[in-house]
């Protein structure tokens, strides 16, 4: 029988990635339709970690809802708190003392460092490199110790209050933070030698998983994903909140739009976050850390508002609707991972499965944030 006479039998098969898989960073399932090694369709199945936080927001008072914020994006929990307390403050017209604003910026940026370091380690594990995780976790451990000393928690922080922060920072924290920044700065060349210059890492990332600027816009992506696609968008710059407009920092932007660009954005953001922390420490004023006369039972006037912060993963938004009682009428939580994940189906089409895992890792997903 000649080769021409043979009919090539071609079929696809369904492959389940997850719900439990090391590369899904939580309970995420992706239903893959595979043509050999290539992805024809990738349907994310989410909701395994869904806890209906938005309903809890309607059932408990504003203050009792605060601890929930540490359980959305638990890798960078302070950003959720920051968005929520700022939204409530905007609604209730509370002004935050200067010192508290500085402490918020310092702790939030420390949290961003911790989040990016964890991501770098976990991303490398997705790609098959175990070693960098041990180094990034070593650095992250120092941050968690610092944050623990001031917030009392290592992961699920509940530190920001309406009108300020829970505890004042002390000299130990300031000295420790400065020492840590010196240490992390000295370790950045080591990270670049270990990861950025690694030929295997570069082959797995350069040109892999392109996400165009227009795709980002259509899907509402944010954070390092859009900055890796050549768009200079950072809520801290474009729509400054808290006291970010006072600090001198850059928004890293890369135009390659691939996994490598998203990696480089995060590594550069580590440098920029350290700059912000140093400036905030230099300018740290004395004074109270809580606004006076914030009522214990907060009842914001009727109305609604929207507040966004730049979380480690992108735009975290809170839309609050108040009916004048002590509980929110509606507390919408806009999660960055939710929108970033929604573009995966379109972008992963035709990719090799191994490359799609690099793309998935480069999105920096935290599943409980996505599922809420």
């Amino acid at each position, binding site marked *: 029988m000649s080769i021409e006479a043979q009919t090539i039998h071609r079929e696809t098969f369904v492959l389940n990635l997850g719900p439990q898989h090391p590369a899904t960073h939580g309970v995420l399932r992706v239903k893959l339709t595979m043509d050999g090694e290539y992805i024809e369709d990738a349907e994310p199945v*989410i*909701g395994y970690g*869904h806890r*209906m936080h*938005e*309903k809890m927001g*309607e059932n408990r008072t504003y203050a009792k809802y605060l601890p929930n914020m540490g359980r959305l994006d638990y890798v960078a929990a302070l950003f959720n708190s920051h968005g929520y307390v700022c*939204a409530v403050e*905007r609604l209730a017209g509370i002004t935050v003392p200067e010192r508290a604003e500085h402490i918020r910026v310092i702790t939030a940026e420390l949290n961003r460092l911790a989040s990016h370091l964890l991501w770098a380690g976990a991303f490398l594990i997705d790609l098959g490199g175990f070693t960098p995780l041990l180094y990034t976790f070593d650095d992250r451990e120092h941050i968690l110790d610092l944050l623990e000393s001031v917030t009392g928690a290592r992961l699920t922080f509940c530190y920001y209050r309406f009108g300020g922060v829970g505890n004042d920072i002390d000299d130990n924290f300031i000295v420790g933070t400065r020492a840590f920044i010196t240490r992390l700065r000295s370790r950045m060349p080591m990270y670049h030698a270990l990861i950025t210059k690694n030929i295997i890492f570069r082959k797995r990332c350069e040109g892999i998983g392109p996400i165009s600027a227009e795709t980002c*816009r*259509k*899907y*509402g*992506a*944010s954070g390092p994903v*859009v900055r890796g696609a050549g*768009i200079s*968008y950072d*809520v801290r710059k*474009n*729509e400054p909140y808290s006291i970010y407009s006072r600090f001198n920092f850059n928004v890293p932007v890369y135009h390659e739009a691939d996994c490598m660009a998203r990696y480089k954005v995060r590594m550069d953001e580590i440098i920029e976050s350290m700059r912000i922390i140093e400036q905030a420490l230099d300018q740290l004023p004395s004074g109270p850390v809580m606004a006076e006369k914030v009522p214990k039972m907060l009842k914001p006037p009727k*109305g*609604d*508002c*929207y*507040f*966004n912060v730049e979380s480690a993963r992108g*735009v975290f*938004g809170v*839309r609050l*609707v108040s009916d004048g009682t002590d509980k929110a*009428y*509606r507390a*919408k939580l*806009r999660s960055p991972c*939710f*929108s970033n994940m*929604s*573009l995966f189906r*379109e972008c992963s089409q035709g990719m090799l499965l191994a490359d799609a895992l690099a793309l998935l890792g480069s999105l920096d997903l935290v599943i409980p944030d996505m*599922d*809420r």
Partner: protein
Amino acid sequence: MTFENLKLYLTGIAAMVAPPAPPVIEGAEPAPTPAPVPQIAETDHAKRGTDLEVTVPADKVAVASHIMDNAGYVLEAITGVDWLAENQFEVVYDYTLWASGQRVAVRARIPRDNPVLPTVSAIYPGANWHERETHDFFGIQFEGHPDLTPLLLPEDATFHPLRKDFGT
């Protein structure tokens, strides 16, 4: 498209509402009924988090989305609100422009007993999940949506937990 132009376009499709009637003064001629005005207003970003708020009729949601898309905006979130006392659902579309950080909220109200809105997922593919989520939580039907199966809730869920009468 400038912000002023965008405002003009949105004014064209905004829902009309009658302003409050002037007080009746005894003896004087009754004042003419005021003409309805479009429900659009610039807002203070520092107080509301938005620069423009517009309410459109339910069937104009997709038109509004088209206008926002042409103006280069990003659809950031879709929020449902259950106004049980008024027997209405409100859906808020939050748009933002990356370059300027300007925010526009487009609102629509629909009756609770027939909650149907046109989908905007053909214009913004990212709306697909936001609309599925809103369908999960409120039971709002998005006409023309490719797949409204539960996204966050269990696959066999028939309840809508963010309705104010859920569980009562």
